[in-house]
Protein backbone atom coordinates (compact mmCIF):
# COMPACT_ATOMS: atom_id res chain seq x y z
CA UNK A 1 0.00 0.00 0.00
CA UNK A 2 1.13 3.57 -0.64
CA UNK A 3 -0.33 7.06 -0.55
CA UNK A 4 -1.97 6.43 -3.90
CA UNK A 5 -3.95 3.54 -2.42
CA UNK A 6 -4.98 5.63 0.58
CA UNK A 7 -6.28 8.28 -1.85
CA UNK A 8 -8.08 5.60 -3.86
CA UNK A 9 -9.73 4.24 -0.70
CA UNK A 10 -10.79 7.76 0.24
CA UNK A 11 -12.35 8.35 -3.20
CA UNK A 12 -14.15 5.03 -2.89
CA UNK A 13 -15.43 5.84 0.58
CA UNK A 14 -16.89 9.19 -0.41
CA UNK A 15 -18.47 8.24 -3.73
CA UNK A 16 -21.35 10.69 -3.58
CA UNK A 17 -19.19 13.56 -2.43
CA UNK A 18 -16.59 12.72 -5.06
CA UNK A 19 -19.24 12.63 -7.78
CA UNK A 20 -20.66 15.93 -6.57
CA UNK A 21 -17.21 17.53 -6.38
CA UNK A 22 -16.27 16.34 -9.85
CA UNK A 23 -19.64 17.18 -11.44
CA UNK A 24 -18.61 20.71 -12.45
CA UNK A 25 -15.51 19.37 -14.13
CA UNK A 26 -17.54 16.65 -15.87
CA UNK A 27 -19.92 19.26 -17.31
CA UNK A 28 -17.08 21.54 -18.41
CA UNK A 29 -15.20 18.67 -20.04
CA UNK A 30 -18.41 17.52 -21.76
CA UNK A 31 -18.92 21.03 -23.15
CA UNK A 32 -15.30 21.17 -24.28
CA UNK A 33 -15.45 17.77 -25.98
CA UNK A 34 -18.81 18.45 -27.61
CA UNK A 35 -17.66 21.86 -28.86
CA UNK A 36 -14.45 20.46 -30.30
CA UNK A 37 -16.05 17.44 -31.93
CA UNK A 38 -18.81 19.56 -33.49
CA UNK A 39 -16.29 22.21 -34.54
CA UNK A 40 -14.03 19.61 -36.15
CA UNK A 41 -17.01 18.05 -37.95
CA UNK A 42 -18.10 21.51 -39.12
CA UNK A 43 -14.62 22.48 -40.28
CA UNK A 44 -14.35 19.21 -42.15
CA UNK A 45 -17.67 19.86 -43.83
CA UNK A 46 -16.59 23.35 -44.84
CA UNK A 47 -13.24 22.10 -46.13
CA UNK A 48 -15.19 19.58 -48.20
CA UNK A 49 -17.29 22.41 -49.60
CA UNK A 50 -14.16 24.44 -50.31
CA UNK A 51 -12.54 21.49 -52.06
CA UNK A 52 -15.67 20.74 -54.03
CA UNK A 53 -16.75 24.22 -55.01
CA UNK A 54 -13.89 26.37 -53.86
CA UNK A 55 -11.61 26.25 -56.85
CA UNK A 56 -14.20 27.59 -59.18
CA UNK A 57 -15.67 30.78 -60.50
CA UNK A 58 -19.22 31.29 -61.60
CA UNK A 59 -19.74 33.82 -64.37
CA UNK A 60 -23.23 35.24 -64.85
CA UNK A 61 -24.50 37.96 -67.13
CA UNK A 62 -24.14 41.26 -65.31
CA UNK A 63 -27.56 42.55 -64.40
CA UNK A 64 -28.89 45.10 -61.98
CA UNK A 65 -31.93 43.00 -61.18
CA UNK A 66 -30.72 39.99 -59.21
CA UNK A 67 -33.73 37.84 -60.05
CA UNK A 68 -33.47 34.19 -59.39
CA UNK A 69 -34.91 31.27 -61.18
CA UNK A 70 -37.29 29.51 -58.82
CA UNK A 71 -35.02 30.28 -55.96
CA UNK A 72 -32.07 28.46 -57.49
CA UNK A 73 -30.06 31.59 -57.99
CA UNK A 74 -29.01 30.37 -61.40
CA UNK A 75 -30.10 32.98 -63.85
CA UNK A 76 -31.50 36.37 -64.51
CA UNK A 77 -33.27 36.07 -67.86
CA UNK A 78 -30.18 37.52 -69.55
CA UNK A 79 -27.51 35.73 -71.50
CA UNK A 80 -23.82 35.72 -72.31
CA UNK A 81 -22.97 35.23 -75.99
CA UNK A 82 -21.10 31.98 -76.48
CA UNK A 83 -18.69 33.89 -78.68
CA UNK A 84 -17.40 35.74 -75.57
CA UNK A 85 -15.96 32.52 -74.16
CA UNK A 86 -12.47 32.84 -75.75
CA UNK A 87 -12.10 36.39 -74.43
CA UNK A 88 -13.22 35.34 -70.96
CA UNK A 89 -10.79 32.43 -71.04
CA UNK A 90 -7.94 34.69 -72.07
CA UNK A 91 -8.58 37.15 -69.21
CA UNK A 92 -8.88 34.28 -66.77
CA UNK A 93 -5.66 32.55 -67.86
CA UNK A 94 -3.76 35.79 -67.83
CA UNK A 95 -4.95 36.66 -64.31
CA UNK A 96 -4.04 33.22 -62.96
CA UNK A 97 -0.61 33.34 -64.55
CA UNK A 98 0.19 36.82 -63.25
CA UNK A 99 -1.25 35.80 -59.86
CA UNK A 100 1.25 32.97 -59.62
CA UNK A 101 4.07 35.18 -60.83
CA UNK A 102 3.19 37.79 -58.19
CA UNK A 103 3.53 35.06 -55.59
CA UNK A 104 6.84 33.94 -56.97
CA UNK A 105 5.31 30.73 -58.19
CA UNK A 106 5.05 29.57 -54.59
CA UNK A 107 1.94 28.40 -52.91
CA UNK A 108 1.00 30.95 -50.29
CA UNK A 109 -1.84 29.32 -48.42
CA UNK A 110 -1.28 27.63 -45.08
CA UNK A 111 -1.34 23.88 -45.34
CA UNK A 112 -0.57 23.89 -49.03
CA UNK A 113 2.36 21.82 -50.26
CA UNK A 114 5.43 23.86 -51.03
CA UNK A 115 6.88 24.11 -54.51
CA UNK A 116 5.86 25.50 -57.86
CA UNK A 117 2.27 24.67 -58.68
CA UNK A 118 1.48 23.00 -61.92
CA UNK A 119 -0.71 25.17 -64.06
CA UNK A 120 -3.21 23.15 -65.99
CA UNK A 121 -5.82 24.72 -68.23
CA UNK A 122 -9.05 25.54 -66.43
CA UNK A 123 -12.30 23.89 -67.43
CA UNK A 124 -14.98 26.25 -68.73
CA UNK A 125 -18.40 24.66 -68.44
CA UNK A 126 -21.13 26.80 -70.03
CA UNK A 127 -24.79 26.26 -69.22
CA UNK A 128 -28.04 27.48 -70.68
CA UNK A 129 -31.02 27.45 -68.31
CA UNK A 130 -34.56 27.47 -69.67
CA UNK A 131 -37.94 26.96 -68.08
CA UNK A 132 -40.59 24.67 -69.48
CA UNK A 133 -43.40 22.34 -68.46
CA UNK A 134 -42.87 18.60 -68.33
CA UNK A 135 -45.68 16.21 -67.29
CA UNK A 136 -47.69 19.27 -66.21
CA UNK A 137 -44.91 20.34 -63.87
CA UNK A 138 -42.73 23.36 -64.07
CA UNK A 139 -39.19 22.33 -64.89
CA UNK A 140 -35.76 23.82 -65.47
CA UNK A 141 -33.79 22.44 -68.39
CA UNK A 142 -30.04 22.95 -68.36
CA UNK A 143 -28.06 22.67 -71.55
CA UNK A 144 -24.51 21.54 -70.83
CA UNK A 145 -21.26 20.73 -72.62
CA UNK A 146 -20.90 17.12 -71.39
CA UNK A 147 -17.11 16.88 -71.46
CA UNK A 148 -16.54 20.18 -69.64
CA UNK A 149 -19.47 19.61 -67.31
CA UNK A 150 -18.29 16.21 -66.13
CA UNK A 151 -14.82 17.59 -65.42
CA UNK A 152 -16.25 20.54 -63.58
CA UNK A 153 -18.83 18.54 -61.58
CA UNK A 154 -16.46 15.68 -60.82
CA UNK A 155 -18.61 14.60 -57.87
CA UNK A 156 -21.56 13.72 -60.12
CA UNK A 157 -22.51 10.09 -59.91
CA UNK A 158 -25.18 8.28 -61.88
CA UNK A 159 -27.87 6.58 -59.81
CA UNK A 160 -29.32 4.71 -62.78
CA UNK A 161 -28.50 4.71 -66.48
CA UNK A 162 -25.62 6.79 -67.86
CA UNK A 163 -24.49 10.36 -68.33
CA UNK A 164 -26.03 12.30 -71.21
CA UNK A 165 -23.84 12.36 -74.34
CA UNK A 166 -26.06 12.83 -77.43
CA UNK A 167 -28.33 15.65 -78.60
CA UNK A 168 -31.44 13.44 -78.45
CA UNK A 169 -30.79 12.45 -74.81
CA UNK A 170 -31.55 14.02 -71.44
CA UNK A 171 -30.52 13.21 -67.89
CA UNK A 172 -32.47 14.05 -64.69
CA UNK A 173 -31.37 15.32 -61.32
CA UNK A 174 -32.35 12.98 -58.48
CA UNK A 175 -35.28 15.04 -57.14
CA UNK A 176 -36.55 15.80 -60.65
CA UNK A 177 -36.69 12.07 -61.34
CA UNK A 178 -38.60 11.40 -58.15
CA UNK A 179 -41.23 14.14 -58.44
CA UNK A 180 -41.98 13.65 -62.13
CA UNK A 181 -41.85 9.86 -61.95
CA UNK A 182 -39.83 9.56 -65.17
CA UNK A 183 -37.56 6.55 -65.51
CA UNK A 184 -34.53 5.72 -67.58
CA UNK A 185 -35.72 4.81 -71.12
CA UNK A 186 -38.82 7.05 -70.95
CA UNK A 187 -39.40 9.74 -73.54
CA UNK A 188 -39.48 13.28 -72.15
CA UNK A 189 -41.15 15.86 -74.35
CA UNK A 190 -39.53 19.31 -74.37
CA UNK A 191 -41.24 21.98 -76.47
CA UNK A 192 -42.86 19.25 -78.57
CA UNK A 193 -39.61 17.30 -79.09
CA UNK A 194 -39.35 13.85 -77.50
CA UNK A 195 -35.93 13.16 -75.92
CA UNK A 196 -34.82 9.94 -74.33
CA UNK A 197 -34.07 9.92 -70.58
CA UNK A 198 -30.76 8.05 -70.33
CA UNK A 199 -29.81 8.56 -66.68
CA UNK A 200 -30.73 9.85 -63.24
CA UNK A 201 -28.05 11.46 -61.07
CA UNK A 202 -27.40 10.69 -57.41
CA UNK A 203 -28.44 13.39 -54.98
CA UNK A 204 -25.87 16.22 -54.84
CA UNK A 205 -27.55 18.54 -52.30
CA UNK A 206 -27.44 21.29 -54.94
CA UNK A 207 -29.90 22.89 -57.41
CA UNK A 208 -28.75 20.28 -59.94
CA UNK A 209 -31.04 17.80 -58.17
CA UNK A 210 -34.10 19.67 -59.51
CA UNK A 211 -33.03 19.98 -63.16
CA UNK A 212 -33.15 18.13 -66.41
CA UNK A 213 -29.90 18.13 -68.38
CA UNK A 214 -29.49 18.05 -72.13
CA UNK A 215 -26.67 18.76 -74.59
CA UNK A 216 -26.07 22.53 -74.80
CA UNK A 217 -26.51 22.83 -78.59
CA UNK A 218 -29.72 20.79 -78.49
CA UNK A 219 -31.25 22.86 -75.67
CA UNK A 220 -30.24 26.09 -77.43
CA UNK A 221 -32.06 24.86 -80.55
CA UNK A 222 -35.13 23.65 -78.64
CA UNK A 223 -35.59 27.03 -77.01
CA UNK A 224 -34.37 29.17 -79.92
CA UNK A 225 -31.35 30.44 -77.95
CA UNK A 226 -28.60 29.54 -80.42
CA UNK A 227 -25.21 30.97 -79.40
CA UNK A 228 -26.40 32.01 -75.94
CA UNK A 229 -25.54 30.73 -72.49
CA UNK A 230 -26.88 31.62 -69.02
CA UNK A 231 -23.69 31.12 -67.08
CA UNK A 232 -20.20 29.63 -67.13
CA UNK A 233 -18.73 27.55 -64.38
CA UNK A 234 -14.95 27.81 -64.42
CA UNK A 235 -13.11 25.14 -62.51
CA UNK A 236 -9.47 25.90 -61.85
CA UNK A 237 -7.50 22.71 -62.34
CA UNK A 238 -5.08 23.47 -59.55
CA UNK A 239 -5.96 23.34 -55.87
CA UNK A 240 -4.39 26.60 -54.78
CA UNK A 241 -4.88 28.75 -57.89
CA UNK A 242 -5.20 32.49 -57.16
CA UNK A 243 -8.80 32.35 -58.25
CA UNK A 244 -9.61 35.60 -56.46
CA UNK A 245 -7.25 37.40 -58.88
CA UNK A 246 -9.17 35.94 -61.83
CA UNK A 247 -12.44 37.05 -60.27
CA UNK A 248 -11.21 40.63 -59.93
CA UNK A 249 -9.75 40.67 -63.45
CA UNK A 250 -12.93 39.33 -65.06
CA UNK A 251 -15.15 41.80 -63.24
CA UNK A 252 -12.84 44.67 -64.18
CA UNK A 253 -12.10 43.70 -67.77
CA UNK A 254 -15.05 41.85 -69.29
CA UNK A 255 -18.07 44.07 -69.73
CA UNK A 256 -21.46 42.43 -69.23
CA UNK A 257 -20.45 39.59 -66.94
CA UNK A 258 -20.18 39.16 -63.21
CA UNK A 259 -17.71 36.63 -61.82
CA UNK A 260 -18.16 35.21 -58.32
CA UNK A 261 -15.60 33.06 -56.57
CA UNK A 262 -17.22 30.31 -54.49
CA UNK A 263 -13.97 29.94 -52.63
CA UNK A 264 -14.22 33.39 -51.10
CA UNK A 265 -17.73 32.58 -49.88
CA UNK A 266 -16.66 29.28 -48.46
CA UNK A 267 -13.61 30.86 -46.79
CA UNK A 268 -15.82 33.56 -45.30
CA UNK A 269 -18.14 30.85 -44.00
CA UNK A 270 -15.07 29.03 -42.66
CA UNK A 271 -13.92 32.19 -40.90
CA UNK A 272 -17.34 32.80 -39.34
CA UNK A 273 -17.53 29.21 -38.17
CA UNK A 274 -14.05 29.48 -36.66
CA UNK A 275 -14.94 32.69 -34.85
CA UNK A 276 -18.14 31.20 -33.48
CA UNK A 277 -16.18 28.14 -32.35
CA UNK A 278 -13.64 30.38 -30.59
CA UNK A 279 -16.43 32.24 -28.78
CA UNK A 280 -17.96 28.94 -27.67
CA UNK A 281 -14.54 27.74 -26.48
CA UNK A 282 -14.26 30.99 -24.54
CA UNK A 283 -17.50 30.15 -22.76
CA UNK A 284 -16.19 26.65 -22.12
CA UNK A 285 -13.06 28.16 -20.56
CA UNK A 286 -15.32 30.25 -18.35
CA UNK A 287 -17.22 27.14 -17.31
CA UNK A 288 -13.87 25.53 -16.40
CA UNK A 289 -13.06 28.51 -14.22
CA UNK A 290 -16.41 28.21 -12.45
CA UNK A 291 -15.93 24.43 -12.10
CA UNK A 292 -12.47 25.01 -10.59
CA UNK A 293 -13.86 27.52 -8.10
CA UNK A 294 -16.72 25.21 -7.14
CA UNK A 295 -14.29 22.32 -6.73
CA UNK A 296 -11.95 24.49 -4.67
CA UNK A 297 -14.81 25.33 -2.28
CA UNK A 298 -15.84 21.72 -1.98
CA UNK A 299 -12.30 20.45 -1.38
CA UNK A 300 -11.75 23.14 1.27
CA UNK A 301 -14.98 22.02 2.94
CA UNK A 302 -13.82 18.42 2.75
CA UNK A 303 -10.54 19.29 4.45
CA UNK A 304 -12.36 20.85 7.38
CA UNK A 305 -14.38 17.65 7.61
CA UNK A 306 -11.21 15.56 7.53
CA UNK A 307 -9.31 17.26 10.33
CA UNK A 308 -9.26 14.04 12.32
CA UNK A 309 -7.71 12.07 9.48
CA UNK A 310 -5.20 14.82 8.64
CA UNK A 311 -4.38 15.08 12.34
CA UNK A 312 -3.77 11.36 12.58
CA UNK A 313 -1.45 11.41 9.56
CA UNK A 314 0.50 14.33 11.04
CA UNK A 315 0.82 12.62 14.39
CA UNK A 316 1.97 9.42 12.71
CA UNK A 317 4.74 11.39 11.04
CA UNK A 318 3.37 12.46 7.65
CA UNK A 319 5.47 15.26 6.20
CA UNK A 320 3.95 18.29 4.46
CA UNK A 321 4.96 16.89 1.11
CA UNK A 322 3.28 13.56 1.84
CA UNK A 323 0.05 15.26 2.89
CA UNK A 324 0.10 17.44 -0.22
CA UNK A 325 0.73 14.39 -2.37
CA UNK A 326 -2.21 12.61 -0.80
CA UNK A 327 -4.59 15.41 -1.78
CA UNK A 328 -3.03 15.79 -5.23
CA UNK A 329 -3.47 12.05 -5.84
CA UNK A 330 -7.13 12.39 -4.91
CA UNK A 331 -7.41 15.31 -7.34
CA UNK A 332 -5.69 13.25 -10.04
CA UNK A 333 -8.17 10.43 -9.59
CA UNK A 334 -11.11 12.80 -9.53
CA UNK A 335 -9.75 14.44 -12.67
CA UNK A 336 -9.32 11.07 -14.35
CA UNK A 337 -12.87 10.01 -13.49
CA UNK A 338 -14.24 13.44 -14.40
CA UNK A 339 -12.34 13.42 -17.69
CA UNK A 340 -13.62 9.99 -18.72
CA UNK A 341 -17.21 10.77 -17.68
CA UNK A 342 -17.01 14.21 -19.30
CA UNK A 343 -15.65 12.75 -22.53
CA UNK A 344 -18.43 10.16 -22.75
CA UNK A 345 -21.08 12.79 -22.01
CA UNK A 346 -19.52 15.23 -24.49
CA UNK A 347 -19.26 12.59 -27.21
CA UNK A 348 -22.92 11.72 -26.65
CA UNK A 349 -23.88 15.39 -26.86
CA UNK A 350 -21.83 15.90 -30.03
CA UNK A 351 -23.43 12.84 -31.64
CA UNK A 352 -26.81 14.52 -31.16
CA UNK A 353 -25.81 18.09 -31.93
CA UNK A 354 -23.53 17.69 -34.97
CA UNK A 355 -26.07 16.09 -37.36
CA UNK A 356 -28.68 18.62 -36.24
CA UNK A 357 -26.34 21.58 -36.74
CA UNK A 358 -24.63 20.42 -39.94
CA UNK A 359 -26.85 18.22 -42.07
CA UNK A 360 -25.36 14.87 -42.99
CA UNK A 361 -22.43 15.16 -40.60
CA UNK A 362 -21.38 12.31 -38.37
CA UNK A 363 -19.01 12.71 -35.45
CA UNK A 364 -15.77 10.82 -35.63
CA UNK A 365 -13.68 9.28 -32.86
CA UNK A 366 -10.27 10.76 -32.47
CA UNK A 367 -7.79 9.56 -29.84
CA UNK A 368 -6.77 13.07 -28.88
CA UNK A 369 -10.30 14.02 -27.76
CA UNK A 370 -10.31 11.70 -24.69
CA UNK A 371 -6.67 12.61 -24.00
CA UNK A 372 -7.55 16.30 -24.06
CA UNK A 373 -10.65 15.68 -21.92
CA UNK A 374 -8.66 13.84 -19.26
CA UNK A 375 -5.81 16.36 -19.29
CA UNK A 376 -8.25 19.28 -18.97
CA UNK A 377 -10.10 17.58 -16.11
CA UNK A 378 -6.88 16.66 -14.28
CA UNK A 379 -5.48 20.18 -14.70
CA UNK A 380 -8.70 21.70 -13.38
CA UNK A 381 -8.80 19.26 -10.43
CA UNK A 382 -5.18 19.85 -9.50
CA UNK A 383 -5.49 23.64 -9.76
CA UNK A 384 -8.58 23.52 -7.55
CA UNK A 385 -6.84 21.27 -5.01
CA UNK A 386 -3.42 22.89 -4.80
CA UNK A 387 -4.29 25.52 -2.21
CA UNK A 388 -6.49 23.23 -0.06
CA UNK A 389 -3.70 20.63 -0.12
CA UNK A 390 -1.17 23.28 0.86
CA UNK A 391 -3.53 24.46 3.60
CA UNK A 392 -3.90 20.92 4.96
CA UNK A 393 -0.15 20.31 4.87
CA UNK A 394 0.47 23.57 6.76
CA UNK A 395 -2.03 22.72 9.46
CA UNK A 396 -0.23 22.91 12.77
CA UNK A 397 0.36 19.56 14.38
CA UNK A 398 -1.11 20.85 17.64
CA UNK A 399 -4.44 21.59 15.92
CA UNK A 400 -4.31 18.17 14.36
CA UNK A 401 -3.60 16.61 17.76
CA UNK A 402 -6.60 18.32 19.31
CA UNK A 403 -8.79 16.85 16.56
CA UNK A 404 -7.89 13.34 17.70
Amino acid at each position, binding site marked *: *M*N*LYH*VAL*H*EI*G*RRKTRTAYTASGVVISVALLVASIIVAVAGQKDIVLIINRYGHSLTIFPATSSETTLKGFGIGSGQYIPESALPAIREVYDSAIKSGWEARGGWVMEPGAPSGVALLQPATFAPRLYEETTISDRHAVVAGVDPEAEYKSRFWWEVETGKLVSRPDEVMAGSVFGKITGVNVGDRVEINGHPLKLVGVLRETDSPDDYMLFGILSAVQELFGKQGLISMINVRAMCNYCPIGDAEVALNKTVVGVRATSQRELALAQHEIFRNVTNVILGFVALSFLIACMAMFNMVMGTIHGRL*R*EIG*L*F*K*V*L*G*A*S*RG*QLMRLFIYEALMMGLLGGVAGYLLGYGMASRIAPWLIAGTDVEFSWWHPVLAILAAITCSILATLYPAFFASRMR*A*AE*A*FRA*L
Partner: protein
Amino acid sequence: MIECKAVSKTYQIGDTVTEAVRNICFKAQVGEFVVILGHSGSGKSTLLSMIGGLTRPSGGQVAVAGEDIWQWSDNKRAKFRNQTIGFVFQFASLIPTLTVLDNIALPSLFGEGMTRAARLRARDLAGIVGLSDKIDSYPSEISGGQQRRVAISRAFLNDPRIVLADEPTGDLDEATEAQVMDVFTGMCRQHKTTILMVTHNRDLIKSADRTLVMKDGAIL
Protein backbone atom coordinates in the same frame (compact mmCIF):
# COMPACT_ATOMS: atom_id res chain seq x y z
CA MET B 1 15.61 9.32 27.51
CA ILE B 2 13.11 12.15 27.95
CA GLU B 3 13.98 15.27 29.85
CA CYS B 4 11.70 18.26 30.40
CA LYS B 5 13.51 21.36 31.63
CA ALA B 6 11.26 24.13 32.97
CA VAL B 7 8.70 23.49 30.24
CA SER B 8 5.76 25.86 30.17
CA LYS B 9 2.90 26.68 27.85
CA THR B 10 0.72 29.75 27.87
CA TYR B 11 -2.24 30.57 25.66
CA GLN B 12 -3.46 34.06 25.06
CA ILE B 13 -7.03 34.68 23.98
CA GLY B 14 -7.67 38.40 23.78
CA ASP B 15 -6.34 39.92 26.96
CA THR B 16 -6.64 36.68 28.88
CA VAL B 17 -3.46 34.67 29.35
CA THR B 18 -3.85 31.07 30.48
CA GLU B 19 -0.93 29.03 31.80
CA ALA B 20 -1.71 25.48 30.68
CA VAL B 21 1.66 24.06 31.77
CA ARG B 22 3.95 25.69 34.34
CA ASN B 23 7.63 25.06 34.80
CA ILE B 24 7.57 21.29 34.41
CA CYS B 25 10.81 19.44 35.13
CA PHE B 26 11.11 15.69 34.98
CA LYS B 27 13.04 12.83 33.42
CA ALA B 28 11.86 9.47 32.16
CA GLN B 29 14.40 6.68 31.69
CA VAL B 30 14.61 4.06 28.95
CA GLY B 31 11.98 1.34 29.54
CA GLU B 32 10.28 3.30 32.28
CA PHE B 33 6.47 3.30 32.51
CA VAL B 34 5.38 6.71 33.81
CA VAL B 35 1.77 7.57 34.51
CA ILE B 36 0.84 11.24 34.64
CA LEU B 37 -2.26 11.57 36.73
CA GLY B 38 -4.48 14.57 36.84
CA HIS B 39 -7.97 15.93 36.44
CA SER B 40 -9.32 17.26 33.20
CA GLY B 41 -7.72 20.64 32.42
CA SER B 42 -4.65 20.01 34.55
CA GLY B 43 -2.37 20.38 31.49
CA LYS B 44 -1.33 16.74 31.12
CA SER B 45 -2.42 16.41 27.44
CA THR B 46 -0.65 19.68 26.59
CA LEU B 47 2.52 18.33 28.22
CA LEU B 48 2.23 15.12 26.22
CA SER B 49 1.69 17.12 23.04
CA MET B 50 4.86 19.13 23.69
CA ILE B 51 6.92 16.00 24.37
CA GLY B 52 5.52 14.47 21.17
CA GLY B 53 6.66 17.41 19.05
CA LEU B 54 3.14 18.58 18.32
CA THR B 55 2.77 21.72 20.46
CA ARG B 56 5.64 24.17 20.76
CA PRO B 57 6.39 25.07 24.40
CA SER B 58 6.26 28.74 25.40
CA GLY B 59 9.34 28.20 27.52
CA GLY B 60 11.86 25.57 28.57
CA GLN B 61 13.26 22.58 26.69
CA VAL B 62 12.02 19.15 25.73
CA ALA B 63 15.03 16.94 25.14
CA VAL B 64 14.94 13.41 23.80
CA ALA B 65 18.18 11.49 23.98
CA GLY B 66 19.86 14.77 24.83
CA GLU B 67 18.53 16.77 21.84
CA ASP B 68 16.05 19.61 22.10
CA ILE B 69 13.34 18.50 19.70
CA TRP B 70 12.03 22.05 19.32
CA GLN B 71 15.27 23.13 17.69
CA TRP B 72 14.55 20.79 14.80
CA SER B 73 12.80 21.57 11.52
CA ASP B 74 9.18 20.57 10.96
CA ASN B 75 10.22 17.72 8.69
CA LYS B 76 12.76 16.40 11.20
CA ARG B 77 10.08 16.49 13.93
CA ALA B 78 7.68 14.65 11.57
CA LYS B 79 10.38 11.99 11.09
CA PHE B 80 10.90 11.89 14.86
CA ARG B 81 7.17 11.33 15.41
CA ASN B 82 7.21 8.60 12.81
CA GLN B 83 10.28 6.70 13.96
CA THR B 84 10.85 7.44 17.64
CA ILE B 85 7.38 7.97 19.03
CA GLY B 86 4.22 5.92 19.13
CA PHE B 87 0.98 7.70 19.92
CA VAL B 88 -2.14 6.23 21.46
CA PHE B 89 -5.20 8.44 21.84
CA GLN B 90 -8.35 8.40 23.88
CA PHE B 91 -10.23 7.26 20.78
CA ALA B 92 -8.84 4.59 18.50
CA SER B 93 -8.61 7.00 15.51
CA LEU B 94 -8.45 4.35 12.84
CA ILE B 95 -8.87 4.94 9.11
CA PRO B 96 -12.24 3.36 8.29
CA THR B 97 -11.35 2.48 4.70
CA LEU B 98 -8.27 0.48 5.67
CA THR B 99 -8.20 -3.03 7.09
CA VAL B 100 -6.90 -3.78 10.57
CA LEU B 101 -3.56 -4.86 9.07
CA ASP B 102 -3.23 -1.69 6.99
CA ASN B 103 -4.20 0.46 9.97
CA ILE B 104 -1.49 -1.14 12.08
CA ALA B 105 1.04 -0.74 9.26
CA LEU B 106 -0.02 2.87 8.54
CA PRO B 107 2.99 4.62 10.21
CA SER B 108 5.33 2.81 7.83
CA LEU B 109 3.59 4.60 4.95
CA PHE B 110 5.10 7.87 6.16
CA GLY B 111 8.49 6.36 6.85
CA GLU B 112 10.22 3.91 4.59
CA GLY B 113 7.03 2.86 2.85
CA MET B 114 4.67 0.01 3.52
CA THR B 115 7.12 -2.74 2.75
CA ARG B 116 6.61 -6.47 3.11
CA ALA B 117 8.65 -6.31 6.32
CA ALA B 118 6.33 -3.64 7.70
CA ARG B 119 3.28 -5.74 6.92
CA LEU B 120 4.88 -8.79 8.57
CA ARG B 121 5.64 -6.71 11.64
CA ALA B 122 2.02 -5.47 11.64
CA ARG B 123 0.85 -9.07 11.43
CA ASP B 124 3.06 -10.00 14.42
CA LEU B 125 1.71 -7.07 16.44
CA ALA B 126 -1.86 -8.07 15.61
CA GLY B 127 -0.99 -11.50 16.96
CA ILE B 128 0.49 -10.03 20.17
CA VAL B 129 -2.75 -8.12 20.88
CA GLY B 130 -4.86 -11.15 19.97
CA LEU B 131 -6.22 -9.93 16.64
CA SER B 132 -4.65 -12.43 14.24
CA ASP B 133 -8.05 -13.48 12.97
CA LYS B 134 -9.18 -9.89 12.42
CA ILE B 135 -6.40 -8.53 10.21
CA ASP B 136 -8.60 -8.38 7.11
CA SER B 137 -11.54 -6.82 8.95
CA TYR B 138 -12.41 -3.16 8.75
CA PRO B 139 -12.63 -1.03 11.91
CA SER B 140 -16.42 -0.98 11.71
CA GLU B 141 -16.44 -4.79 11.92
CA ILE B 142 -14.61 -5.08 15.25
CA SER B 143 -15.46 -4.02 18.82
CA GLY B 144 -14.30 -0.86 20.59
CA GLY B 145 -11.79 -2.78 22.68
CA GLN B 146 -10.39 -4.47 19.59
CA GLN B 147 -10.13 -1.08 17.85
CA ARG B 148 -8.16 0.22 20.82
CA ARG B 149 -5.80 -2.75 20.57
CA VAL B 150 -5.32 -2.01 16.87
CA ALA B 151 -4.39 1.58 17.79
CA ILE B 152 -1.89 0.32 20.37
CA SER B 153 -0.36 -2.09 17.87
CA ARG B 154 -0.05 0.79 15.42
CA ALA B 155 1.83 2.81 18.03
CA PHE B 156 4.39 0.01 18.35
CA LEU B 157 4.84 -0.66 14.62
CA ASN B 158 8.07 1.26 14.09
CA ASP B 159 9.48 -0.18 17.31
CA PRO B 160 9.46 3.30 18.92
CA ARG B 161 11.66 4.17 21.87
CA ILE B 162 8.85 6.24 23.39
CA VAL B 163 5.09 5.68 23.51
CA LEU B 164 2.83 8.57 24.51
CA ALA B 165 -0.65 7.50 25.53
CA ASP B 166 -3.40 10.02 26.15
CA GLU B 167 -6.25 8.50 28.19
CA PRO B 168 -5.97 5.20 26.29
CA THR B 169 -8.58 3.53 28.46
CA GLY B 170 -10.89 6.52 28.70
CA ASP B 171 -14.19 4.95 27.77
CA LEU B 172 -13.46 1.26 28.20
CA ASP B 173 -15.08 -1.24 30.55
CA GLU B 174 -12.93 -2.79 33.26
CA ALA B 175 -12.17 -6.03 31.44
CA THR B 176 -11.09 -4.26 28.24
CA GLU B 177 -9.14 -1.73 30.29
CA ALA B 178 -7.21 -4.58 31.89
CA GLN B 179 -6.48 -6.10 28.47
CA VAL B 180 -5.20 -2.76 27.16
CA MET B 181 -2.99 -2.22 30.21
CA ASP B 182 -1.58 -5.73 29.82
CA VAL B 183 -0.60 -4.88 26.28
CA PHE B 184 1.13 -1.70 27.43
CA THR B 185 3.03 -3.30 30.26
CA GLY B 186 3.96 -6.26 28.08
CA MET B 187 5.32 -4.02 25.32
CA CYS B 188 7.12 -1.84 27.84
CA ARG B 189 8.89 -4.74 29.46
CA GLN B 190 9.55 -6.70 26.29
CA HIS B 191 10.84 -3.84 24.12
CA LYS B 192 12.29 -1.53 26.78
CA THR B 193 9.97 1.17 25.55
CA THR B 194 9.55 4.34 27.59
CA ILE B 195 5.84 4.88 28.15
CA LEU B 196 4.25 8.13 29.26
CA MET B 197 0.59 7.60 29.96
CA VAL B 198 -1.74 10.43 30.78
CA THR B 199 -4.89 9.48 32.69
CA HIS B 200 -7.28 10.61 35.37
CA ASN B 201 -7.90 6.98 36.40
CA ARG B 202 -6.09 6.21 39.65
CA ASP B 203 -6.50 2.45 39.13
CA LEU B 204 -3.89 2.54 36.37
CA ILE B 205 -1.06 3.65 38.56
CA LYS B 206 -0.47 0.11 39.76
CA SER B 207 0.95 -0.76 36.34
CA ALA B 208 3.37 2.18 36.40
CA ASP B 209 6.98 2.37 37.55
CA ARG B 210 6.42 5.95 38.58
CA THR B 211 3.46 8.30 38.88
CA LEU B 212 3.47 12.06 38.43
CA VAL B 213 0.47 14.05 39.56
CA MET B 214 -0.42 17.25 37.75
CA LYS B 215 -2.63 20.03 38.97
CA ASP B 216 -3.19 23.46 37.42
CA GLY B 217 -0.37 22.88 34.94
CA ALA B 218 2.27 21.92 37.45
CA ILE B 219 3.65 18.65 38.80
CA LEU B 220 2.96 18.30 42.49
